[in-house]
């Protein structure tokens, strides 16, 4: 964190630390809750792995790392488009549609991953590794679905403040993925 300690002008005139928080406080309550849930889940995953790292590595080999890497790029690009949507009110729909299309791509890739597993007869109760794999990626994918629903609602009833909140939700989904992907797919 080699940030230059430049004084931030916004802070001076504000009397409460909450005032400096970008966006709506309620969204941050949500973001923190989600980080706690996923953080606990990922640490539990690594904790359980201690008992049998070899089995975890074997199970991990059947994951599709390329699909995971592609999805990382898809999500961060989608996040970028959502952020652009917030900053360009007159082209909001265009940017947001792009963001939604990439969100759908993410889900399609995920779908192929899941069906490939199902064809191998792998399910949520197959092993400890796959219990976590399905719980964490599935819960994350549910958030992607929720984000798409929220974006669709915003397209229908545009409102700057809600758009800002929705984009923040979407960035949180990004954030969770960039932490989740390496820990589940790569750490071995």
């Amino acid at each position: 964190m080699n940030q230059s300690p430049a004084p931030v002008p916004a802070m001076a005139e504000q009397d409460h630390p909450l005032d400096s928080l970008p966006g709506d406080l309620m969204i941050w309550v949500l973001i923190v809750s989600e980080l706690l849930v996923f953080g606990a889940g990922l640490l539990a995953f690594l904790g359980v792995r201690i008992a049998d790292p070899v089995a975890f590595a074997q199970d991990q080999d059947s994951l599709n790392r390329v699909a995971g890497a592609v999805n990382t790029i898809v999500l961060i690009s989608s996040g970028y488009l959502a952020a652009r949507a917030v900053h360009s009110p007159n082209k909001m729909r265009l940017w947001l549609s792009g963001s939604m299309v990439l969100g759908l791509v993410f889900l399609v890739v995920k779908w192929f991953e899941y069906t490939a597993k199902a064809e191998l007869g792998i399910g949520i109760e197959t092993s400890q590794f796959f219990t976590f794999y399905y719980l964490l990626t599935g819960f994350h994918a549910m958030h992607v679905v929720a984000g798409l629903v929220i974006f669709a609602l915003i397209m229908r009833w545009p409102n700057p403040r809600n758009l800002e909140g929705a984009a923040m939700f979407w960035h949180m989904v990004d954030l969770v993925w960039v932490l989740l992907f390496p820990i589940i797919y790569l750490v071995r």
Partner: protein
Amino acid sequence: MTQSALTRAFLTLLALSIGTTLLTELRPQAGMGFVALVLLLAGLKARVILMDYLGLRLAPMWQRGFNAFLVVFLLTGLGLYLAG
């Protein structure tokens, strides 16, 4: 946040992600050093998302809090990995 800053953040994220992919392709079985690097890259990505996508660059106090969370989380993760 200006659009160029946003684009810069996106390009950084892209570069970091490609870095992760290259690392995985080059040395997939490398153990501790590999894992430490992968987690470091993940932390940097998360930091860019928090600072630029979520706008914490303008709120240094909160930025510190979230950075601390990330550092503690990733170090705990690394510790758990090493214990296994």
